[in-house]
C-alpha cells in the first residue's frame, strides 16, 4: 500500500469518487454497500474484485448497470475466490513476461463472500488456499 488513506467524515464520503457506486439494488438500510465501500477505500491500488453468488452479487452486478467502478468478476457460489486467483495468475504471468511493466504496483485482489462461499460450498478453497499458500488478498 503506497500511502495511508485519509479517513473521511460522512460529509466527505457523500461526495467521494467511490469504486463501489451507490446505484445498486440492495435493500434500503442494508450494510453490504457500506462494508464494501469501506473495504475498497482502504487501498489506492488498482483492484480486482469478485463476489460469490449471493445478495451482494445479484444486487450490484446487474446488467446493464453494474455498481463496480473497478474490474469485477462473478463466476459461481463456490468459486468467488478461485476466479480472482486465476486473474491474479494472469497478472503474475504477464508481469514475468514484461507485458505489464507500465501497470505497477500490483493490483489488490479482493473477494467478497458469505457463509455459503466460505464455510459451506467454498470450504475446499479455503483449505486449498492455505495448503498452497495462496494470497487471498493483498494490498
Amino acid at each position, binding site marked *: 500500500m503506497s500511502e495511508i488513506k485519509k479517513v473521511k467524515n460522512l460529509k466527505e464520503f457523500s461526495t467521494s469518487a467511490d469504486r463501489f457506486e451507490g446505484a445498486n439494488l440492495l435493500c434500503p438500510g442494508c450494510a453490504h454497500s457500506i462494508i464494501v465501500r469501506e473495504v475498497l477505500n482502504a487501498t489506492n491500488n488498482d483492484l480486482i474484485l469478485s463476489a460469490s453468488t449471493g445478495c451482494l452479487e*445479484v444486487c450490484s*452486478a*446487474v446488467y446493464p448497470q453494474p455498481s463496480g467502478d473497478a*474490474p*469485477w468478476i462473478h*463466476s459461481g457460489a463456490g468459486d468467488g475466490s478461485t476466479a*480472482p486467483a486465476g486473474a491474479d495468475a494472469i497478472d503474475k504471468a504477464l508481469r514475468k513476461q514484461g507485458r505489464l511493466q507500465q501497470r505497477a504496483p500490483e493490483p489488490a485482489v479482493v473477494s467478497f463472500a458469505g457463509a455459503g462461499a466460505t464455510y459451506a460450498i467454498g470450504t475446499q478453497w479455503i483449505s*486449498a488456499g492455505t495448503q498452497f499458500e495462496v494470497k487471498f488478498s493483498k494490498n
Partner: protein
Amino acid sequence: MAFDKMELQKIEVWDGNFAAAQALRQCQIDVVAAYPITPSTPIVEGYAKFLSDNYIEGEFVMVESEHAAMSGCVGAAAAGGRVATATSSQGFALMVEVLYQASGMRLPIVLNVVNRALAAPLNVNGDHSDMYLGRDSGWIQLDAFAPQEAYDLNFIAFKVAEDHDIRLPAMVHQDGFMTSHTAQGVYTLTDDEAYGFVGEYKPMNDMLDFEHPVTHGVQTEEDWHFEHKARQHNDLMTKVFPKIQAAFDAFEKLSGRKYNIVEKYDMNDADVCVVCMGTSVETAREVATEMREKGIKAGVVGLRVIRPFPFFEIAEAFKDVKAIAALDRSSPNGAPGMLFNEIAGALFNTDKRALLSGYVYGLGGRDLTKAHLVSLYTELQANVDAGKVTTQLQQFIGVRGPKLAFL
C-alpha cells in the same frame, strides 16, 4: 522473451497427452489452472514441467478440484491471457457448472478432454460419456481420432476461440488411453511456426485494463438473459464454421495436413456407411476398405466438429448413401443415441433419406473389434437389399449376455 525454445524432430514419437502438452507449450499458455485426473493428467503435468524447465513464461495454479480449475481458468481468461487446462470423466462432470460460466462470459479457454467413462460403476477407460455431457454447454467441441490430431487441433482451437468475432471456449477431445496413452509418429511444427499460427493473444474487455473497468459474470433475469443466450447460440450457429474452415485452410497451408468439418472416407460411391467419433473412425476405415474387397461398398464418416453440429455438412455427406449406422459410445440411458438423433434430424427434411440404425458400443473402454464392424456393415447391406431396416433401431455391440436391442 526470456524462455527457451525447443528443437523438435520433424517426426516425434508422442502419445496424445504429450502431443497436447507440446501444443500448449508452443502456444505459450499464460495460465493453466488444473487438478489431476486419469487419463488426462500428463497434459497438465507436461505444462508444469515445461514451465519449471523455462520453456514457458506462465503460471500454474494448483487448485482443489476441477470445479476450481475451470473457475481459475475463467478468472484468468477474464483478466486477459491465453488459458488452457485438461480433464476427464468425473473431473469434467464436476466442471460442468463452470463450463456454462465460461461460455456465457465468452471466454476463449481451451480444454483438452481426454474422454473417459462416467461412474458408477467407476471406470478409468475411454468412452464418450463426458464428451456427450458437455454438448449443450455452449463450447466449441473438436474431436481428434489420433495423437497427431490432438496436437494439431489445439492450434485450431486457440485460433478459432480467441478470434474477436467468436470469443467462445473450445474443447479438444481425444480418446482416453487409446489416443492419450498410445505413442505414434507425430509430425511437428517448429516453435516459431506454431506460435506464428496462433499469434499473440489479443485481450478484449480484460480485467487488467484498469482504465476501463468491466464487470464479468453479471446478473440478468427475464429482461436480458434470453437475449444473451440467443446471441451466443447465434454466434455458434453462424460464425464458428467459417472461422473453423479458415483455420483448417491456413493450417493446411502451414503443415500440409488437411482437416474437414466432417471427415469422409470412401463416401463418393458408398452404399453403406458408419458414422462415429474418436479412435473408432480409424478402425471403421480399415474395415470399410476390407468390405469393399468383399463387394460391399462401404464408407465412413467421422465427426471432426461436434459442436456446433454440422447439420448441412452431415446431410451433404449422406446424400447418396443407402444405409447408415450411427455409433454412439455413451449410454443414452432411455433414448436413442445422440448421433442417431442428430443425424436423423439432419436428414429428415431432405429428399433422400437413407435407412438409419443406431448402435451403442465400447462403454467403459470395451473394444470395438473389426469383427463387430464386419457384421455391422453386413447388416447394413442386408437393410439395403431389403429396402428397410431389418433389425431393431437400437442395438448394443460387444456386451455380454443375450443380445440387447430396442426400438
